[in-house]
């Protein structure tokens, strides 16, 4: 989407619709400075922080996610886009807290014991936050105790576990089995993800769902939260 003619583009001279479209393009191209500037322009134009987040940033990342899924973009480009989105998020996050943006649910996420690969879960964290979830990202190399403690402390609805290695992904079952033994398994929605996983593995270990990418994680988490609320309303 890069275009030399865009070098001379003055973001503040674009109308709202053009500016949002330009932000989508700039996210796609991983242009941090442009996203920083455009986010501030929309704030100056009295846009609600929540609308900037969902329409301009998350909207742009959705396109990135779709092209990643279709094999048009690859991990480095997705990471560059994510870095650009973070610059916008950093401006918006404190404002969102002030304006009391809606919270859909609360999630604890971390890579399992022995696994230090957190790129995927950091993307999920960012996209989930963008979608209105509150996230406690407990980082890498988590034994079951870390998950259980964080779920309680954060009063979470969802547990997300991530693994990149075929040697570490079986530990997800250890976590779920321990939660079963403790009688707390059904208190949480459990989502799992990571490159070597698949739906079959997710089912076999007793997770609620396998999420193949960050966008699917958001959609799946929303769906499960809706079900949970409906059950609570019915019960």
């Amino acid at each position: 989407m890069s275009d030399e003619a865009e070098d001379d583009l003055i973001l503040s001279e674009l109308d709202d619709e053009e500016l949002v479209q330009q932000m989508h393009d700039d996210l796609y191209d991983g242009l941090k400075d442009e996203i920083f500037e455009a986010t501030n322009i929309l704030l100056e134009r009295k846009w609600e922080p929540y609308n900037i987040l969902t329409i301009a940033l998350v909207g742009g990342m959705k396109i990135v996610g779709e092209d990643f899924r279709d094999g048009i973009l690859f991990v480095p480009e997705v990471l560059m886009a994510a870095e650009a989105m973070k610059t916008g998020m950093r401006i918006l996050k404190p404002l969102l807290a002030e304006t009391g943006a809606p919270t859909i649910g609360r999630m604890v996420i971390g890579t399992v014991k022995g696994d230090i690969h957190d790129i995927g879960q950091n993307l999920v964290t960012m996209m989930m936050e963008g979608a209105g979830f509150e996230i406690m990202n407990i980082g890498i190399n988590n034994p079951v105790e870390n998950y259980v403690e964080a779920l309680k402390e954060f009063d979470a609805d969802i547990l997300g576990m991530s693994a990149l290695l075929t040697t570490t992904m079986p530990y997800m079952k250890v976590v779920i089995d321990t939660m079963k033994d403790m009688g707390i398994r059904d208190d949480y929605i459990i989502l799992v993800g990571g490159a070597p996983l698949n739906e079959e593995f997710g089912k076999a270990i007793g997770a609620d769902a396998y999420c193949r990418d960050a966008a699917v994680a958001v959609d799946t988490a929303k769906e499960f939260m809706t079900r949970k609320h409906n059950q609570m309303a019915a019960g």
Partner: protein
Amino acid sequence: MSDPSPPSDDVLTVEGLQPTGSGRVLILGCGALAREILTLTRAFDHIDLQCLPAILHNHPEKIVPAVRKAVAESDGYDDIFLAYADCGTGGGLKRAADELGLKMMPGPHCYAFFEGTEGFVARSEEEFTAFYLTDFLVRQFDAFVWRPLGLDRHPELRDAYFGNYEKLVYQAQTEDAALTAKAEESAQKLGLAFERRFTGFGDLEDEIKSLKNASQQTDN
């Protein structure tokens, strides 16, 4: 083997190595192991070698279908041995090997069998922040690490990929000062501490020896 000279590393990465068609036992392996296997099987005319493109290492989901295809297309061998470990297939390659009645290397990766699978697996609980390179991967660092991760285009992503790693362990199959220097340079590029560990051919040597012995016993 009649011609033990391997093709270039670039060819092994992208194309692999075609079998000569002679020999009764086929070793079907990863292109990253071609040089080592050719060294170990030198002078054994009954063993043929076919290697799949080494770059499948970066796409483990493609390994099982590629192995199945190569086995289906192989012709005239009494036995086939898979010179692959699990290699990120999540047990898929072992299941395929069992189904096809083939033996393969044990353990999770070539990193494991070069070092000795048992010791490597035991150590891995403590050493999971190590990033491993073999002789081949040092020579092909750009093709397997630097370019696929986009670090040639976006070097600022380095810490996103490697920030949680602590050291690069170069598992040396050979004594080669130039290769050691290249491995150390790779560690510096990734911002990691450097450790060189001489492994030789590890369990690969034992497996190929047993393959030779088994076929010799058949001859007798």
